[in-house]
């Protein structure tokens, strides 16, 4: 009965993983050892430099002092409020940027007229140094989070837009033939082929977008604000509190890392069928 006799023996089911060789095991868990080791080396050099140059503490606080300050920071409700403001601006900006980027991307990918019409404006919105707009937005919307959300949105929407357009345009001709042969409507084609096909592209756009939204929020606060981690960096520098500045930088790094990791992890649940959804191995944008 040719292949039908015992297909399970020849074709692995979804649960049976590939055999884990020693080499693959080594590569997979390598970062769990190298990351702490490299961090320890960097902190060691840092400590050694501070210890051997007594005057350097004005420009570089010792690691232990930063560590203490970090704990102090996390126990202080005011600092947590600053973190909250930055997170709020980042997430709202990222959300708005995603909605605008994704919907605009789909519209542009489906309509050549709109693509030709809107392209100059979209490119203009990207080539303009957005930092130069911050004072204007601050002037219009004040020191409140709105101006920062707008900057974050403006930064986050573009990678989503370009990835969605790329995704939709990458749908193979055969898939369109299939949907034509089944007399699918435009909406059915969108839901059953174009949208799922674009998901890996959308997620890649989101990974880049969320980091850009964080940058937008921080730069916004930095140039015109009285709350948030961006404001705190300016404050710490002006007050010569370098340990606080280092703390804020560490906190920002952790926030960016966590946001990125959430989206990278979402791949496994949203697109398990895709190559990039199968392993956590990702290039950092």
């Amino acid at each position, binding site marked *: *009965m*040719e*292949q*039908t006799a015992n*297909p*399970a023996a*020849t*074709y*692995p*089911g*979804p649960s049976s993983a590939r055999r884990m060789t020693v080499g693959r095991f080594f590569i997979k868990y390598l970062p769990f050892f190298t990351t702490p080791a490299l961090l320890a080396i960097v902190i060691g050099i840092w400590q050694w430099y501070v210890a051997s140059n007594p005057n350097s503490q004005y420009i570089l606080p010792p690691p232990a002092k930063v560590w203490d300050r970090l704990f102090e920071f996390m126990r202080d409700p005011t600092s947590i409020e600053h973190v909250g403001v930055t997170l709020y601006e980042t997430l709202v900006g990222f959300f708005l940027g995603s909605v605008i980027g994704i919907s605009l991307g789909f519209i542009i990918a489906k309509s050549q007229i709109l693509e030709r019409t809107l392209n100059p404006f979209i490119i203009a919105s990207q080539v303009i140094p957005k930092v130069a707009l911050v004072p204007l937005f601050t002037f219009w919307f004040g020191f409140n989070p709105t101006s920062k959300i707008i900057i974050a949105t403006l930064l986050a929407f573009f990678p989503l837009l370009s990835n969605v357009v790329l995704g939709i345009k990458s749908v*193979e001709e*055969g*898939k369109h*033939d*299939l949907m*034509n*042969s*089944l*007399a*699918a409507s435009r909406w*059915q084609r969108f839901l*059953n*082929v174009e949208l*799922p096909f674009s*998901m890996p592209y959308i997620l890649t756009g989101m990974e880049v977008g969320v980091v850009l939204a964080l940058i937008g929020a921080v730069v916004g606060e930095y140039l015109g604000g009285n709350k948030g981690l961006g404001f705190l960096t300016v404050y710490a520098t002006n007050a010569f509190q370098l340990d606080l500045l280092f703390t804020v930088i560490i906190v920002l790094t952790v926030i960016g890392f966590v946001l990125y990791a959430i989206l990278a992890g979402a791949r496994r649940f949203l*697109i398990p*069928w*895709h190559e990039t959804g199968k392993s956590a191995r990702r290039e950092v944008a």
Partner: protein
Amino acid sequence: MDKLENSPPTTFDKPLPAQRGAKGGQQDIVVSGINKIYTTDQGRVTALEDINLTAEHGSFISLLGPSGCGKTTLLRIMGGLLHPTTGEIMVGGRPLYGPNGPSKEIIREVGFVFQDPNLLPWRNIQRNIALPLELQKVDKTERIGRVREMLRLVGLDATTFERLYPRQLSGGMRQRVAIARALVFNPLMLLMDEPFGALDAMTRENMNLELQNIWQKSGKTIVLVTHSLQEAVFLSDRVAVLSSRPGRLKEIVDIDLPRPRTRAMLEDPKLTEYVGYLRHKLEEGYDNDGTNR
């Protein structure tokens, strides 16, 4: 090896072609006066010229021709995927192309199988086969039943395969799933565009036997585009030979071999004779230097 005897019964069990021929006579598809002209930078290219062809209900027809002769173009026109320049296609007695393009209702009388199985990687096998039913808004319980019926028809075990994803299947199995998907909405006929072209020789032979089996059990009319002479003879009631540039219908050869055809018949002198005759016909389509320019 003969699947016909030990295959489980399906609701698709229909009389064998010989009996059907006696009963039938209904024309599933009528191709009349089809011309297809492409306009390119170099001018107008006639891809198809005055093609007339009919397929009786339950018959198996192959389209054979040198590469570039427009057989795929013809099949796509028959499937509602490509508008002919002039001419008409009637499916089940109704025109496929109306004034506003191909009719969705008529397209759904035709199942199309491509050379690439075109399975959707994010859907498991069950949901891949169910796709046409979802598009036609068939309810879920019925969908599941129909998919199981189709898996049985194409010789795949439902409990093993339903939950697998396309990437876990071999090329031959993917194509079986594609056939199941093309039949699940119970179209009048099946159009197949070199469905086994990407398979190795042995798998291809197995798939030919399997296709004959599916055809006999389902009772569908099948039009197959192929460039394999042996495949065309082995499977068909009639083989339509096309010539190249412009694509014209050169000859229709009736294949008078008993059914069901078995693996042993591949070496039957009568089959070999048909293959030789068709090769001779095809060679006329090529120039002396062996190209088909």
